[in-house]
């Protein structure tokens, strides 16, 4: 396969990237990348640190305008789309930031309330409150809702960022290292929510080093190196890859978080213990 082009033939994409290039000063973070993320499936982006995973995710989410190329999210041109179409598209998407991205001058309650109040201005305050507490209770966070983000631990911030992304009940989710800093129980609760979203047909695109997340959620895996796509396919296709660079990257990336014995690539095998 062409190193910078990937598509899942025959499957309708939720996000389509064409010839994306991103330059940070003298550093080329993404090099002419084209990819179509399949609708209703979970695609996890993997690669060594600094290879452009988060940059690709942000471009795919329409948060980072590329220097060249086209971005289409749920059929909407993310770079030149009309404001109403963009707003409607955003209403159905959620993004969990690597460093939480919470609004610092708002309480956690307000952080979760703002998306609801913005997209559903007619929704009663009591309903908004109930929805927020329902999500917070699911993660044992209801007591800290009156606080501001600066008083929280990294894990709590991440969980609130996760709840904020979920509050609009999105059908397209972007996850940038969602489990980093989160304790075991928090990760399990997060995985439970993500499994529900996956079962409901939500499309998910994520960046992770978490072996559990990969084994439980991934339908497709995209492997990157130095700003280029190295491999893209179903988990079993990628696991069967004979490309030594892909195998090395997967082993290195997953090994950072895995606690399993044996060949790390077994985690991706359809017949492996985790499938």
């Amino acid at each position: 396969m062409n190193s910078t082009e990937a598509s899942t033939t025959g499957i309708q994409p939720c996000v389509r990237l064409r010839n994306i290039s991103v330059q940070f000063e003298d550093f080329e973070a993404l090099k002419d990348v084209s990819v179509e993320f399949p609708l209703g499936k979970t695609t996890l982006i993997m690669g060594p640190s600094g290879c452009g995973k988060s940059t690709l995710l942000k471009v795919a989410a329409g948060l980072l305008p590329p220097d060249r190329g086209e971005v289409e999210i749920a059929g909407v041109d993310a770079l030149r789309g009309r404001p109403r179409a963009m707003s409607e598209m955003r209403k159905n998407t959620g993004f969990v930031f690597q460093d939480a991205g919470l609004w610092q001058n708002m309480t956690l309650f307000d952080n979760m309330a703002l998306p609801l109040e913005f997209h559903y201005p007619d929704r009663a305050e009591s309903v908004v409150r109930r929805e927020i507490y329902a999500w917070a209770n699911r993660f044992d966070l209801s007591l800290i809702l009156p606080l501001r983000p600066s008083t929280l631990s990294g894990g709590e911030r991440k969980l609130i960022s996760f709840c904020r992304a979920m509050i609009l009940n999105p059908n397209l989710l972007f996850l940038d290292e969602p489990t980093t800093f989160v304790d075991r129980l928090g990760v399990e609760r997060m995985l439970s929510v993500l499994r529900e979203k996956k079962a409901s047909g939500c499309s998910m695109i994520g960046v992770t080093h978490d072996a559990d997340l990969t084994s439980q959620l991934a339908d497709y895996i995209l492997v990157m190196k130095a700003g280029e796509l190295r491999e893209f396919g179903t988990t079993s296709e990628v696991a069967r890859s004979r490309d030594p660079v892909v195998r090395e990257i997967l082993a290195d990336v997953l090994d950072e978080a895995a606690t399993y014995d044996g060949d790390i690539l077994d985690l991706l095998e359809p017949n492996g213990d985790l499938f």
Partner: protein
Amino acid sequence: MQMLFTGFEALPVIAVIALGLGGIIVIQGLSLLPQFGQGQLIYTILVIVITRELGPILAAFIVFARSGTAITTEIGNMVINREIEAFIATGINPISYLVVPRFLGVTLSMMLLNVYFNVFGLLGSFFIAQLFQPLPFSQYAAGLFEAISGADVASTMLKSMIFGALIATVSTFYGFRVERSSTEIPQNTIRSIGVGFTLLIVANGVLTLVYYL
């Protein structure tokens, strides 16, 4: 909130500067002008200096130094903390949500602070004048009202409105120019002050020129 921060909290410093400026004009004017038999000109000078020229520009400098820098820093920090990206991800246009309220708040506060500056500057000069040449307030007020014209009021309000818009635009623009590093925040704040003060002085010159055309 923006008006509270930009307008209300700036009242003490505006009052001190306005009183000081009014006092200086009166002290200098009352010591010099009567020597030429032009004591009445003090009212015209007060109106020209406080209402038309220094009132709007000094109030603008104060607002820029306090609120303009704060806006640049705040927005710069929001960029670094991914808060702007979070607004976009949620579908909230950061320009509508962050810039428009600041633009309106700073512009309106600037106009109100200019009125406040004028009131304190002109009142302050009355109290200072009592030290040199005691005169009834009615006489002082009559002299001022005779010297001030509708064009003076329109000029000062127009200037303060334009200065407010300039301060809000420059400070938010430089806040959004921050891209990745927290060290860009002070750099952009310094740039915004340099560019902002220059634009304020140029705008003041142009508007004064237009007034006399």
